[in-house]
């Protein structure tokens, strides 16, 4: 069995945040929000692997009732079964992962997105791997399935070749065998070509509307961390590197420049043609255009 974990997130500012700005409201509306591009790619990867190996594909999501929408979408696209862990939306990722791990127990491969839209930490897949005691291959940009001869498909461990992104444009080629947990980026390539989620067929969509979704209760966990304050992003004041340069003026300028968190430029509001002219004028002035 191949499991795919999908996280449904409300759009920022809507539903997720309680009216008083503190804590979270679980009763968000399933019309808005959705899954991350990475989760969409994860679903396509799981479906392709399922098809290639003759495995069932089980879609799993933890959260309030609204998450059933993504599970139905997954069923419509061809997932064989769906499991819904009925829980609050905003819980510590370790607890979410423990429930997901229990729900996907026995899976040959667990496919996750590299990040969820709201938390975006990429930590849930690593926690799942911990709970299942398997290897992890996270943040993948490329994935190949080395299928043994066709009659061997579906039995025994499978070998995967995966490329994971490192810092500074470097990448790491990993060899993993199932069972394992992988997480994929939104534009992950499968056997060399980047995947995008298929469109559900009309019969698939109709069948998914009535398909049963198994509901699971979350295990009891210690209470999750409470967020004491939610606000719009503001950059932290950055520490200044000590000024370099021979010219005093340059050093002073560096000291005055706070590394970009403060406005120091000019703002103009012009029609498109005038905007373009203004940009070209600045580029000339700065010496990038003659």
């Amino acid at each position, binding site marked *: 069995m191949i499991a795919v974990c999908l996280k449904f997130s409300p759009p920022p500012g809507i539903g997720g945040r309680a009216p008083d700005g503190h804590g979270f409201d679980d009763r968000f509306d399933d019309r808005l929000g959705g899954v991350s591009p990475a989760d969409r790619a994860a679903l396509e990867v799981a479906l392709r692997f399922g098809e290639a190996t003759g495995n069932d594909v089980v879609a799993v999501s933890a959260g309030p009732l609204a998450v059933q929408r993504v599970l139905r979408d997954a069923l419509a696209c061809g997932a064989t079964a769906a499991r819904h862990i009925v829980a609050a939306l905003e819980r510590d990722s370790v607890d979410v992962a423990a429930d997901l791990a229990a729900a996907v127990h026995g899976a040959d491969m667990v496919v996750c997105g590299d990040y969820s839209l709201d938390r975006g930490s990429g930590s849930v897949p690593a926690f799942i791997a911990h709970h299942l005691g398997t290897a992890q291959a996270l943040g993948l940009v490329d994935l190949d399935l080395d299928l043994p001869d066709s009659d061997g498909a579906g039995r025994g461990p499978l070998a995967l070749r995966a490329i994971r992104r490192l810092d500074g444009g470097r990448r790491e080629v990993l060899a993993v065998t199932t069972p394992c947990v992988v997480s994929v980026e939104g534009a992950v390539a499968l056997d060399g070509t980047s995947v995008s989620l298929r469109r559900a067929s009309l019969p698939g969509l*109709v*069948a998914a*509307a009535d398909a049963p979704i198994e509901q699971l209760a979350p295990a009891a966990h210690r209470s999750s961390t409470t967020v004491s304050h939610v606000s719009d992003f503001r950059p932290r004041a950055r520490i200044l590197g000590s000024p370099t340069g021979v010219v005093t003026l340059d050093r002073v300028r560096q000291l005055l420049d706070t590394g970009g968190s403060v406005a120091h430029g000019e703002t103009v509001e012009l029609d498109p043609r005038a905007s373009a002219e203004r940009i070209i004028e600045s580029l000339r002035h700065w010496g990038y255009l003659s």
Partner: protein
Amino acid sequence: MSDASLPDTADPRAGNDVDVVVVGAGPAGSCAAITLARRGLRVLLLERGPFPGSKNMYGGVVYPRILDQLIPQWWEEMPVQRWITRRTTMVLTDTQALSVDFRTEAWGTAPYNGATAFRPDFDHWLAGHAEAAGARLLCSTTATGLLRDTAGTVIGVTTDRPNGDVRARVVIACDGVNSFLAKESGLHAKPDPANYTLGVKETLALPKDVIDERFGVRGTDGVDIEILGGTSGVNGGGFIYTNFDTIAVGVVLKLPKLAAQQRRPEDIIAGLKAHSAIAPLVEGGELKEYSAHLIPEAGLAMMPQLVGAGLLVAGDAAAMCLAAGIWLEGVNFAMASGMYAGEAAAEAIGRGDVSVNGLAGYRKRLDDTFVLRDHRKLRRAPALVLSDRVQHMYPQLIAGVAEGMFRVDNPAPKPGLRKLLATERKRAGVRRRDLIRDGWAGFRTFG
């Protein structure tokens, strides 16, 4: 791997064979689906957007009386912004404004009259009733064409999904103003831009108490202001109405004029908002949304044939929107025509005759009710209200008379009304003959 080669999870025919396909989950489509599903028919309701209402203009004033027949006590559950208890009709010139203001407490209590509502909420709610009645709603699914048998009878639709053909005994096109299905079916004559107006609207956020204070209302009471003039010389009209903590300001503009003047609709709204009578109402509102949409406004003059073999057309797709000056009602006409289309389709299916004749009950129902009666009655209204005289000269005339009446011009004595009228008529450049003729036309149209 292409979509087509994917194995289907279900029997390929499951769901692809229903009694009725309703295209478009707007007010017309949902009411058709509710009606049909309650009669035990298998209904597929197709919606192009990710959810009903997602593609629709953000809000409007709806008059849901017709829902008494489908959802008794609808006012207890309908997602409402404010109940309209105050209607103002305003005539603007560049520097003047004259308002007629009407208020009634009756519209602020059950069974209510009209309300402002956000279409994403309203359409979603109505489609929820269709689903509850047993209709199957499929979103993000666009109907792309009609299926016909050799005799030309419509027997279903094609969609943009893999394996997406759906067969049905009757198709009801409720796909809105640009109805592609009505066009494809040949029921529509070639669209003439002169028959459409462009509606554009800004939604502005203001704190609820500021709205209450500026518009003189409390609680969930709200205001609807219809405006004649103020559209910077482009023939049309304006409107302002209050939502819970936003207000909508918009204009409805005659297309050929707009094109001829090369004006941008945003600029015309900006002009309206800057008018001295409007500015204090909208000041400080933060722009939340800007939207533009066509309105079929020529009413009967542009209505397509409403019935084809195996096909009915309802709502804006059939130009059912009543846009006649101080009225802008589309949702109620859409809901009613959808409901009647549903009844007629059920009847025809029950009799096993979905030919043009078998579906004739639709036209009859429309003829017998407000849907076509109002349209017949007001058939001259759009042309009259959008005529150059009504648009450009009469506001001048009316406001001029009012200013003359209320001006204190001592030591000169107050002018007599007749004399004032004559002077202002000349000043506004209105010929007496035209005034009398338009007055008569107005009386016949609205009287």
